[in-house]
């Protein structure tokens, strides 16, 4: 875990941690939903907006040229963070849109039967897992419904573990896509994505990795993941809302049909046809997310300055304590095991006799911000025998004191609601 000094320095970067909520200091344990923002990146973004706003890729004047450069630099910074080439990194609005771009490419290709790799037909199969966020499930349901392909669900164990074997059990020669989360946003368990990607590739399927809960919490090398596509969002990485990314391997992006079209993605246009630029431009029509890209790149530099290995170590160590302490509270049941798995700093749980909304409200009254509900994973909750849960998730600014404070409060919830 971070030393006290390091922790104080990191916390100092987040003005929101000095806010009071309901008259008490904020204890923010909802990073998995949306991360807080460090001051430096936000201030830089706003200074840029106020002094360097201009059209990217569209102007010859000095400000426009500077904006274009700043935008390209931002992409390079973000790409480097995941060991990717800038040209393989497509900006989107959020991870949901990243996944949808791929899913829509499948739907559009299927409608016209080409390109082959993206064209699905009845009898072919799409594999997702039982631990999917709605963002990596519903788009594939729609693809299946529209194309006649079959959606197959790789099961998790009662402890929430996704094994390579479980995925292999639903893989066939007809599988064309395998979608899975790198880390479940309900369980916090790190899935064996490399091995699953290898298994998927053995049957010739494309692999879509939802890295929303991985990218902010561990060093990620896109090639090492084995995936063909990786989706993630800035706002979970201490960056702005309104921007996310789809990484794709160069050859797959080259084959993938465009989905959104318009300006800034073309070479030649006449009234009845147009020629497109290569990736990433071919997937990014219209005025780009200029200040958001700049803000995100700065938040990436903020993480890089700490070092992703140290971030991962801090959060998973603290997460292990969190898991142990929450499990020990009377009447509290944690979703997902901690045995034989790697985990990030995230724990979801049910409280006997108290609905998550009420648990969350009680904690909120102590200044503790947590997520309650189904966390966009209704099917997984049902699979694990509950409708919803309360989730505590950690960030770079989380401390042992905060974890202990939250668990203390949690221990008083059932008493407050008269069910202890």
């Amino acid at each position, binding site marked *: 875990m971070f030393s006290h000094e390091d922790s104080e320095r990191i916390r100092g970067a987040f003005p929101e941690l000095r806010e009071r909520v309901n008259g008490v200091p904020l204890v923010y344990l909802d990073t998995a939903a949306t991360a807080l923002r460090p001051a430096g990146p936000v201030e830089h973004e706003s200074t840029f907006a106020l002094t360097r706003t201009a059209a990217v890729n569209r102007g010859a004047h000095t400000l426009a040229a500077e904006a274009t450069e700043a935008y390209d630099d931002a992409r390079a910074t973000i790409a480097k963070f995941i060991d990717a080439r800038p040209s393989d990194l497509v900006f989107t609005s959020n991870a949901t849109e990243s996944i949808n771009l791929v899913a829509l490419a499948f739907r559009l290709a299927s409608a016209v039967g080409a390109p082959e790799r993206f064209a699905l037909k009845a009898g072919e199969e799409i594999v997702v897992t039982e631990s999917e966020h709605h963002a990596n499930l519903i788009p594939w349901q729609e693809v299946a419904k529209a194309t006649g392909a079959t959606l197959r669900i790789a099961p998790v164990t009662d402890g929430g573990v996704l094994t390579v074997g479980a995925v292999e059990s639903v893989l066939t020669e007809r599988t064309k896509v395998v979608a899975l989360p790198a880390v479940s946003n309900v369980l916090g368990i790190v899935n064996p994505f490399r091995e699953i990607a290898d298994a998927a590739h053995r049957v010739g399927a494309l692999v879509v990795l939802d890295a929303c809960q991985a990218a902010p919490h561990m060093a990620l090398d896109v090639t090492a993941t084995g995936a063909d596509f990786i989706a993630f969002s800035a706002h979970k990485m201490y960056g702005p809302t309104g921007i996310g990314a789809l990484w794709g391997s160069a050859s797959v992006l080259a084959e993938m049909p465009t989905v959104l079209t318009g300006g800034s993605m073309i070479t030649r246009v006449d009234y009845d046809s147009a020629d497109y630029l290569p990736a990433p431009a071919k997937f990014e029509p219209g005025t780009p997310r200029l200040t958001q890209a700049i803000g995100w790149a700065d938040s990436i530099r903020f993480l890089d300055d700490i070092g992703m290995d140290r971030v991962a170590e801090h959060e998973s160590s603290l997460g292990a304590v969190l898991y142990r302490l929450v499990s020990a509270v009377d009447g509290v049941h944690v979703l997902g095991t901690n045995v034989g798995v790697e985990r990030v700093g995230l724990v979801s749980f049910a409280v006997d006799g108290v609905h998550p909304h009420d648990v969350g409200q009680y904690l909120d009254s102590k200044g503790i911000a947590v997520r309650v509900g189904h966390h966009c994973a*209704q099917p997984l*909750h049902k699979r694990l025998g509950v*409708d*919803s849960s309360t989730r505590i998730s950690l960030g770079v600014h989380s401390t042992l004191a905060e974890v202990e404070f939250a668990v203390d409060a949690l221990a008083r919830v059932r008493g407050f609601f*008269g069910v202890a």
Partner: protein
Amino acid sequence: MELESLYQQIILDHYKRKVGYGINHGGHPSHQYNPTCGDEINLQVLLSADGSTIDGIEWEGTGCSISQASASMLAAESKGMTIDEFEKFAGGFREAMRSRGEIVLDEEEYGDLASLSGVSKFVARVKCAMLAWVAAEDSVTLTRGSLN
């Protein structure tokens, strides 16, 4: 905001008592979801033969103390109302819930439901309190539609 202004004892009591719980008659239930938490309710308003009066409310579902207590109190308080009375009653309740603490429900008129007045200060919970009411209004519409 004081937590106690939200969770009055009477609310926690209704959360356990659940007046009207269990769907035992044929009717026109309305199924409503709270998209944030996946909570659901299935609720039907039983009307008199001429469709003018509420004979009872039956419901089933899962949810937080606020949504369940609201359903339970609604079942308890609305019995015997005419449709016109109920519509006014529901309108007043909705207005209070949306008032951000401005409107306190009258205990004479709203009975136990008055204890839900505090919910309106907790904007995120208004949906919980309204879930049963949306279902009730929908069920009334469905039921009356079937009478015509």
